[in-house]
């Protein structure tokens, strides 16, 4: 099995769209993403079968292609539990992203090409086990977003797009510096390599670890909306077109979390332990602060954008706790938040498309006129506030339980204060539901707007099904992830 076929499928789809007219662009994009979804589902089954057969190696389906032999740059692909769950997330979000933008009118072809290009970047990022190709795909998953927001966005789109691109590029500059320092030490050890596994065993002096780790961690955490560096998120999300918001919050923010866990903490457990209190403090601030700021938002899209900051704080909190359980929870939170927020943005896009406003108070009573969209909104909201039976609960609880395994007062207080955000989350979610969906119908014009169309229904159903499949029986996913986490974070003798 070759997981890099995912990349080939994406590229073929992109080329097909390029070659065809814009009338069938949507159809081609849908076909391509559905194939990707089926492929990654197949990957899941093969992965599980392989694990059940007793294959305990960290990466499955490994392939190495030499890219530039002189510097030992390769494309080393392979999947573990974390990347598998991320790939599944990506494919699910992409399909629904294509579906909700079915009726894009302006430059349809280019829109789908850029969206798929983002998808390619994300797949490549998650597949790569070589830092060079990983960085390459990382950039690929950032740049098209600028165009998507600046061309198809709304509001202050150029400003938001520029801010997002600059801040994310700043993050990747840090990452690049980190990667190059690592490469330097691998050269010094006489075995130049960008390969994660080899770098894992490369000796790096303690002092160097203490500066390379923050470079990598901060660089990735910018994408995951680490507290003072989160301001691209609200602007970017609220200006982006629906599908781009879905991708941005659903997948891009996960690239950051994945990088933090799978690269920064994996390579430097000792440095991570050193910096863990700072990470926890920043994550807690981000969680609570994000939640409280969300409380004030009147625009429901902006509300969801800020709530993403709060929810991604949980990813960093789980990562910063450094226990296997919390780390598993962090990955679960990435998956859960990815799907949930995609659904949320999708639904908000549908509402906006009908009512042409996103201010909660101008909506009102929508559940009466669009029951399907309203129900989806409620489901997304309930997932966001962590209702059991939906995916958010599983992730948050795993993080809390994992965080509580450390018995000192600092970690306790951090956990409890993070847990306090679930109350605030309930408040803003219920406010949004109460204001925009319930109550008497505010505007008679909405009555003719009609409920979801087939493609919107399909997009929501796919996302809701994924939320529920994790929420009702989370064991399969948490098992896949925790197995990998426990292999990744056994103590490394060299560091």
């Amino acid at each position, binding site marked *: 099995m070759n997981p890099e076929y995912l990349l080939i499928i994406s590229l073929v789809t992109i080329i097909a769209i390029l070659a065809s007219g814009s009338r069938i662009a949507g159809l081609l994009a849908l076909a391509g993403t559905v194939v990707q979804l089926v492929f990654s589902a197949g990957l899941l089954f093969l992965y599980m079968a392989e694990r059940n057969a007793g294959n305990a190696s960290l990466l499955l389906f490994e392939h190495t292609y030499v890219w530039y032999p002189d510097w030992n740059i390769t494309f080393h692909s392979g999947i573990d539990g974390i990347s598998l769950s991320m790939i599944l997330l990506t494919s699910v979000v992409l399909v629904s992203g294509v579906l909700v933008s079915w009726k894009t009118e302006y430059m349809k072809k280019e829109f789908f090409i850029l969206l798929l290009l983002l998808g390619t970047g994300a797949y490549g990022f998650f597949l790569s086990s070589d830092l060079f190709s990983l960085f390459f795909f990382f950039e690929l998953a950032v740049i098209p977003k600028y165009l998507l927001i600046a061309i198809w966005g709304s509001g202050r789109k150029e400003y938001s797009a520029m801010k997002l691109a600059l801040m994310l590029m700043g993050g990747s500059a840090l990452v690049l510096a980190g990667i190059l320092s690592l490469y330097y030490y691998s050269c010094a050890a006489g075995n130049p390599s960008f390969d994660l596994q080899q770098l894992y065993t490369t000796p790096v002096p303690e002092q160097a670890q203490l500066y390379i780790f923050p470079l990598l961690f901060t660089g990735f955490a910018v994408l995951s909306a680490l507290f003072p560096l989160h301001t691209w998120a609200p602007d970017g999300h609220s200006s982006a077109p629906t599908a781009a918001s879905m991708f941005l919050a659903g997948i891009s923010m996960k690239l950051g979390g994945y990088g933090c866990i799978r690269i920064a903490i994996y390579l430097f457990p000792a440095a991570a332990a050193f910096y863990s209190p700072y990470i926890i403090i920043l994550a807690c601030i981000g969680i609570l602060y994000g939640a*409280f700021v969300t*409380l004030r938002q009147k625009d429901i899209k902006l509300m969801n954008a800020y709530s993403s900051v709060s929810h991604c704080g949980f990813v960093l909190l789980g990562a910063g706790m450094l226990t296997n359980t919390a780390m598993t929870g962090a990955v679960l939170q990435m998956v859960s938040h990815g799907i949930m927020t995609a659904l949320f943005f999708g639904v908000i896009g549908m509402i906006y498309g009908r009512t042409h406003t996103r201010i909660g108070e101008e909506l009102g009573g929508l559940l009466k006129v669009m029951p399907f969209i309203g129900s989806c909104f409620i489901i997304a909201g309930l997932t966001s506030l962590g209702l059991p039976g939906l995916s958010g609960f599983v992730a948050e609880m795993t993080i809390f339980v994992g965080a509580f395994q450390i018995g000192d007062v600092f970690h306790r207080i951090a956990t409890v204060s993070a*847990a306090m955000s679930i109350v605030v989350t309930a408040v803003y979610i219920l406010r949004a539901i109460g204001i925009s969906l319930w109550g008497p119908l505010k505007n008679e014009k909405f009555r003719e707007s009609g409920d979801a169309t087939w493609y919107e229904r399909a997009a929501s159903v796919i996302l809701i099904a994924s939320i529920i499949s994790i929420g009702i029986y989370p064991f399969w996913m948490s098992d896949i992830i925790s197995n990998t986490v426990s292999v990744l974070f056994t103590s490394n003798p060299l560091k």
Partner: protein
Amino acid sequence: MSNIYDYTCFILLLPLLTFLLPGLFGKKFPRISGILGTTSMLIVTVLAYLTAYHYFITDAPAEGYYWPYGSRWPYLVLAKFTWLRFNAALSLDMGIALDPLSVMMLVVVSTVSLMVHLYSTGYMKGEERYSTYFSFLSLFTFSMLGLVVASNIFQIYIFWELVGVSSFLLIGFYFDKPSAVAAAKKAFIVTRFADLGFLCGILILSFYSGSLDFRVIIERMSSSSSAFYSFAAGASFLGVSALTWALVLIFAGGAGKSAMFPLHIWLPDAMEGPTPVSALIHAATMVVAGVFLVARLFPVFCMSHAAMDVVAYTGAASALIAALIACTQTDIKRVLAYSTMSQIGYMMFSLGISGYGGEKGLGYSAALFHLFTHAMFKALLFLCAGAVIHAVHSNEIKDMGGLKKPMPFTSIAFFFACLAISGIPSLSGFYSKEEILTAAFHRNKIIFCTGLLTAGITSFYMFRLYFSIFWNNKNKSGIKTHMAASITIPLFILTVATIEAGHIPFGKYVSSDGLPLHSDTDIRLSAAAIIISGIGILTAAFLYLKERTLPGRISAKAGIVYRFIAGKLYIDELYLLITKKVVFNLISAPAAWVDRNIVDGGMNLLGAAAENVSETIRPVQSGKIRNYALWFLAGTILISLFLIYVIR
């Protein structure tokens, strides 16, 4: 041993099915969902009774079988599977656990739920979202049943949240009414806040006991010689032991759900939901979840006197305060809501003063006995109130009066329920309340006096309600009283239950240590309770049997005290002040401002700084070729000098 209970799994599966089917396809077949829900509830009830019959009667071996948490374990776990594994020690196993407590709760929940389903088929007829209603009702029943049979503390938490959300959805069922929306939000948020405590309690408890399974937690925590116990009791935070923290926090969750003072503010507002929902969720089942939770962890609670005191005094305070407020309310459902709160207060303090094992454990049995009888008569009261509201189209007492003639059947049912709640002998409430007072008398005199006083006030406000609705000369003519069979049958069954439920030898089946408990009643205590209740009833009769101006004059005399109580002690206003003023305006608004101006401003500042720098060095590129030449020449000379004198 477990084979004969295979059918018990269907108790959970059927409501789940009747939640999903009408929820997904209900729109096409609206009528069917009611019938489907009721039928499946009937099956569930039969299965629950069958389980209880097997568990308590046919399968019950000799004395000592009901030893819930010791070595001889009658605590059956059916259908256990791993739902989520946190780490090697902590895993979340979903299971169906049968012990005296859960079997008793199965009976209560399924009975009341069946009655409410049946009643709703008549009551909700013609609703636009009829099938949604039944779907939500099934969701609630499913979650509540899952809650009571939980074998794992996290499983309880999961179903705890699910009952919370189904309550939220049902309170907000009439979602175009702004008051219903506000009530639903309030209920969810207040209980959510309490659940935060519950969650922290679970985390602490699981950390110290190293398990999430009830059986293991209780085994490890309930003996003072266990290493886990000494670990938890030894660790302390802010001068209080970790065990007490855990238990108090867990109790906070229970107090939120059970509307204990001061987290009760959501319950009266929750009456915005349809009346059958109030009967099911906000009177008989969900609100007693807190009592259930304390009872479930009772052996652990017994290990911490401080936690038990918190439970007892919270319960007693809630009982008294709610009873006082109930006297002043004019909305029939709100009176009943406060009465519910007061009765749950009884159960709570009864648990709080109870000891573990033998005679000392009387409070435990009494609390659960009261839970059982209260579920019956309170459901009856609510369903009667629903019938009345249906007839007069108002919740206000002043719009009622003299309804005894047009609604004789409802009047009689209501009368019996009032007698039961007042603790008049031979009705169910008498026995349970009697036991509670006896237990309190032996263990804590202050709480006993509070309980006694509350008993008097209870009978006063209940009969105030009864007389104002059904007597009180105002003859409301022209009231149509068509009562469908679907409404009268549940009323009839519940009336029978209200009268007869007290004769069940409850202590024999459910007791703190699992051993049958034979309680002796002290005739003097019963006499005191009966006299106090009688005084309450007579006062109510004197004031409200006929239409008089006296009550108005009394309340005017009481002045500020009356207003304070009628204003529900202004607790709502206090909360509003905290949430609106403090959280919203003092935390949230500045945070939003800081985010836009300081944090984001910082980022923009970086951008502006970069722009400034480039603006500053921009003139170097003047476009004037001779400038460039000059720079070039100067550069060349500098580099040459550098090469000559520095590098050499």
